[in-house]
């Protein structure tokens, strides 16, 4: 259980310095079988940065993210979160994760507020109930995502967009400094996409959260992404930076490249 002194819930959140690397892959290779899905990928995400990961289905975008979150272990290379190797990382309150199609298979009714509250489970541990500060934080993220009117509703009755906002609210409840979203606009209508984008804009510009955004739909991150990185054929290549388009001469060199 995370009992980190530096946990953002312990005191009002202060974003890390802009140059701090929050997520670093160095020469990471990974394969589910003997054939690697990712080969010697190097990629650094800095504080307050918005990085979009694009690429064809099955290219390894989600695999790359799962490695970054410690859900998979690389065959070679290292992954670091906030400077610590992900295997020994314990300050999970600093990371928010919005997986693909989470809760789609839920067979029992779960209310919006209960889902948001689950984001605190790792922080609270056993027997501890949310304090006044935690409850304030829950209220804040419900408001931020426009979910306050639906707090008691079962998620099965929500639209795709409301569901995604619920999952983002859950990921934000610990006041993270890095937010990872996997295909957040899948199954979401145009209106909801706009609301999602506005919410992300607020997170990046006002709350200074670093965002890693996996999507095949550029509309979701248009105007927000500092860098667009394509995952293809096992490599991660920068397609575009905030300063303009960049056509890369060879794959795998991304870590040394900065905007």
């Amino acid at each position, binding site marked *: *259980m*995370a009992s980190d002194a530096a946990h953002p819930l312990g005191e009002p959140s202060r974003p890390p310095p802009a140059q701090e690397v929050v997520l670093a892959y160095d020469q990471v290779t990974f394969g589910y079988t003997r054939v690697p899905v990712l080969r010697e990928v190097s990629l650094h995400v800095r504080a307050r940065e918005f990085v979009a990961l694009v690429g064809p289905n099955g290219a390894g975008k989600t695999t790359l993210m*799962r490695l970054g*979150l*410690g*859900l998979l272990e690389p065959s070679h290379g290292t992954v670091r979160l906030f400077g610590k190797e992900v295997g020994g990382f*314990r300050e*999970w*309150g600093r*990371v928010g*994760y*919005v*997986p693909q199609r*989470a*809760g789609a*298979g*839920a*067979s*029992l*009714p*779960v*209310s919006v*507020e*209960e*889902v948001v*509250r*689950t*984001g*605190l*489970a*790792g*922080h*609270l*541990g*056993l*027997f501890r109930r949310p304090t006044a500060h935690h409850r304030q934080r829950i209220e804040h993220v419900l408001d931020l995502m426009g979910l306050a009117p639906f707090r*008691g*509703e*079962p998620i099965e009755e929500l639209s795709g967009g409301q569901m995604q906002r619920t*999952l983002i609210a*859950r*990921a934000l409840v*610990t006041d993270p400094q890095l937010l990872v979203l996997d295909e957040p606009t899948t199954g979401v209508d145009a209106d909801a996409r706009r609301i999602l984008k506005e919410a992300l804009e607020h997170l990046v510009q006002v709350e200074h959260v670093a965002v890693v955004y996996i999507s095949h739909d550029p509309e979701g991150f248009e105007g927000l992404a500092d860098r667009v990185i394509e995952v293809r054929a096992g490599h991660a290549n920068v397609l575009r930076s905030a300063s303009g388009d960049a056509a890369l001469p060879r794959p795998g060199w991304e870590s040394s490249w900065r905007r």
Partner: protein
Amino acid sequence: MEALSFGFMQRALITCVVVCAVAPLAGAFVVQRRQSLIGDGIGHVAFAGVGLAFLTGTSPLLGAMAMAIIAAVVLFRLERRGRLGGDLSLALIFYGGIALGYLFSQRAGGGLNSVVGFLFGSPNNISWSEVAAITALCAAVAIVVTALYGPLVSISFDEAAARVSGVPTDAVMLALTVVVALIVVGGMQALGVLLIAGMMVVPVAAASQLARSYRSTMLGASAVGVLSAVVGVLVAYYADASTGASIVLTAIACYILATGLRAVRRRYPVQGG
């Protein structure tokens, strides 16, 4: 009420109520993870433990407890390695447990009559000391589920996100599987190893028809469990029927009723609510 003037009925009622109140608490998490048959699998292996206890002359409760906990750990490891997805491994455990249990009890000199109470329950033969042991076991289960409530809801909804939020998912899921094993053992004498798993699942299914949150599903399921136990024990007494079967059938009746109420509620929604 005449039925409750008898000591054996008082013991049967207390045991069934306690077991049926607690079983759905763990059941809610098992159902949410689509592992409704895991309690059944553990029950079958617990039966092998009963047979082994007959063979070695030890307490059936202890034999069942040992085998149920071993089964819980094995099932947990199989599930973690993704080998419980197909039905083959569960089927092997189901049939292996029943076959071993019957073989052991036969070798111990008993026949079907000696084990039928453990298969389908015999709450009328429970002593006060057994009532106390079962109540203590169920209290322990309730405490563990309460302690793990937040992490369990988190994992049941989305295990990957739970891990990323810092929940030790493997430890919590192992604890849940062991809790299921304890419920199987606690309910073995009251409802039998073949029926106790039903009381982990059916009340949850009934409550989920009308509930709008996880907490209300769990509390509602526990209430359905208690109602089923009271009605089942009394029906069994007055109709001279099997108690375990009456309890499970009452819970299924609650499920059908709840499904009907849900259909009515959807057709005639409450305005302004």
